[in-house]
């Protein structure tokens, strides 16, 4: 098969995408496919039209690639592609929209409020923030609504931290959310097709607990897969992760990030197109399930273009 691998792009996760793309290309070659590497830039459509691939492997992360933009173009060109649909990508990339969908599906996610910049600039939303303390309480996590990495995510212990954190979060997106901080174990569940992979736990090292940037960094965080969970815990985490995957209409593969709090798991977000680099969590989880990287890529390719489970 002729497979176009879409990678790069302009998002802040460009570097990760290039690494994901390179690994995917190698795996595809080893699987005997013809590979067309395609940079997601102004020449994207031209390159796709010229090369006429049978399928596109989307290895893009962040806005522009993980938000449905590239997928929409692929639909217009009539090229089937890996990973979630346009609509699912659009829901996942927007944490606020995703949380609404999760709530509507009866899935647990931490309480939140969302604001866009216009609300503060033109509608005096600052005055409404006073109500947030009693509704959510401190500490709070303040995040840009769209953005896949840890950048712009701040921890606010009290009111004094909030305006600065909001200015930071608004640097990445014009919509931000203030989310109740839920203490618990940090888990991640990869889903391929309709199968949940073994749960990965990220255990930040001493002193890095509130450093969101340390979270997924080898050497500052220890990753355990499969996570040490009781059978009931593992089952409940997997069930909720699959529920989130379905509620957002994902297909092919995705990764669900959760917190296991004292009263059960809470979904933080779903990454429509998780990283596929050598330090990424989804390939680690696949490995723990006995799936080599090639087998994982073959499986994702096989699922390309399949509609989401209703």
């Amino acid at each position, binding site marked *: 098969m002729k497979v176009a691998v879409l990678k790069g792009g302009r998002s802040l996760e460009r570097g990760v995408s290039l690494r994901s793309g390179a690994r995917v290309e190698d795996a595809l070659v080893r699987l005997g496919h013809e590979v067309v590497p395609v940079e997601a830039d102004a020449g994207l459509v031209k390159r796709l039209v010229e090369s006429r691939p049978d399928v596109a492997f989307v290895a893009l992360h962040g806005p522009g690639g993980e938000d449905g933009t590239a997928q929409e173009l692929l639909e217009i060109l009539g090229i089937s592609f890996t990973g979630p649909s346009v609509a699912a990508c659009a829901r996942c990339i927007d944490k606020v929209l995703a949380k609404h969908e999760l709530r509507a599906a009866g899935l647990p996610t931490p309480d939140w409020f969302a604001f866009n910049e216009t609300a503060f600039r033109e509608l005096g939303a600052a005055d409404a923030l006073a109500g947030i303390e009693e509704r959510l309480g401190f500490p709070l996590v303040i995040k840009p609504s769209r953005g896949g990495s840890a*950048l712009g995510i701040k921890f606010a212990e009290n009111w004094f931290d909030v*305006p*600065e954190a*909001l200015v930071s979060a*608004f640097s990445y997106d014009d919509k931000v959310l203030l989310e109740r901080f839920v203490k618990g174990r940090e888990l991640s569940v990869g889903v391929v097709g309709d199968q949940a992979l073994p749960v990965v736990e990220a255990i930040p090292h001493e002193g*890095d607990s*509130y*450093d969101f940037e340390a979270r997924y960094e080898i050497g500052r965080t220890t990753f355990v897969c499969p996570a040490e969970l009781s059978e009931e815990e593992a089952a409940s985490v997997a069930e909720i992760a699959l529920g989130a995957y379905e509620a957002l209409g994902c297909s092919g593969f995705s990764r669900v990030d959760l917190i296991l709090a004292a009263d059960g798991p809470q979904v933080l977000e779903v990454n429509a197109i998780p990283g596929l680099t*050598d330090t990424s969590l989804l390939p*680690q989880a696949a490995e723990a399930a006995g799936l080599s990287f090639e087998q994982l890529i073959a499986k994702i390719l096989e699922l390309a273009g399949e509609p989401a489970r209703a």
Partner: protein
Amino acid sequence: MSEPPHRRRAHASSEDLERYAGLFAERTRVMRSSAMRDLMAVTARPEVISLAGGLPDTSTFPPQAFAAQMTRIAQESAAEALQYGPTEGFRETVDCIVEVMGAEGMLPDPEDVLVTTGGQQAIDLLCKALVDPGDAVICEAPTYPGAIPVFCSYEADTIQIECDGEGMRIDELEDTLERLELEGRKPKLIYSVPTFQNPAGVTMSLARRQRLVELARARELLVVEDNPYGLLRFGGEPLPPLYQLDGGDFVLYVGTFSKILSPGIRLGWVVAPPPLMEKIVLGKQAADLCTSTLTQYFVREYFSSGRWREYIESLIGIYRARRDTMIDALARYFPPQASWTEPDGGLFVWATLPPYIDTGDLLAKALREDVAFVPGQAAYVDGRGRSSMRLNFSAGSEDEIREGIRRIGRTVEEQVELYGALTGGREQGSHHPGMPGREAEDMPGNDETQPSAEPGHSVTLPGPADGRAERVKGGDVLPFKKAEGA
């Protein structure tokens, strides 16, 4: 694509990753976060106007001269230029170095000079020879961002001393030395870029230079004077280098051809007294045996033409115009809450924004406008500098500088307005029942970080939380949110 151009490793399993992680040396824990690395990677997109680099302009070096020099080397010394050389460097290279240092009034003994692979290696070799894990190393706040990974890799306890418009605060240095003495400690070295400092652009005053040298002699402390930019002066009177004031007993000197000729040739040097030099040479042997012989031949040829000072004069003309453009653009496009330094030479301006703006996050926003700078945090070991940025004026054209500053100014303006809206305009001094803004009283280093009413006329560098130098041990990773003022 039928075959991969090269073979990549098969995917590492989680056990592999943990096994590697378990093997990492303690010093790797201080390496910068991957998120920030990814952010900096985006600055390399070709459409981005980058005011982030520290690149000198190499576009005006005459290609004919370059070709003629390389041809002569090929014709006359091909075998030697392609061979290993002495670890100390060729005597002819040292002669060029002595000539360069002489231009600033220094008279080093050629025996004290070691040719290195860039000034960066000189810093590394000095630390290798002097610093044990936990040893105190003193530097400026902010300091050269490229020195931090060196201090960290030798697990130094890096102590940063505040800078103002006259360079490193020597009174604060003295307090710090007293405090260390009470703990029974003494810094292994005091690292300073006294002239047109990277990143702040400030120059240490003569009085402070003299005091620093006196202190070094009285307390028998080693000062490392890193002087890449001394010859790139566009205004003001030249000041004697620390090395000249001291005579080379307690001041070690680091120089480079990077900013006066080419960074691509990777040629720098270190000047140190014989006992120390012996250890530095051993370190150099372990690191790379010798500095590139080919580029040493290149420098020798270049200096034999006798036109090296002319070339520097031409660079000075270019950089002066670019600095003027940057300063004009800052006055025009940055909001009144911002302040910046006005360097008399070198490559950098240091701008400071209101304390509620994090320049790391601002960079993400600026990148959407295709413009980049270095967030100030890169110049500190302890998370300070969050509201400052380093701006380079040597690499871009005047048009690029003007446009780059305009774009950054616009993003800053937006954040200032947003903060005003969030805090009910408290930034402007009015009272509003909105959010509690972080007012000046709540801010650390309040007197230092106060927005300047007259931008461009003051040197504003962020101060430490309690007005004293802060110590952060190399190897410590700070918690995400520093307890500012707490």
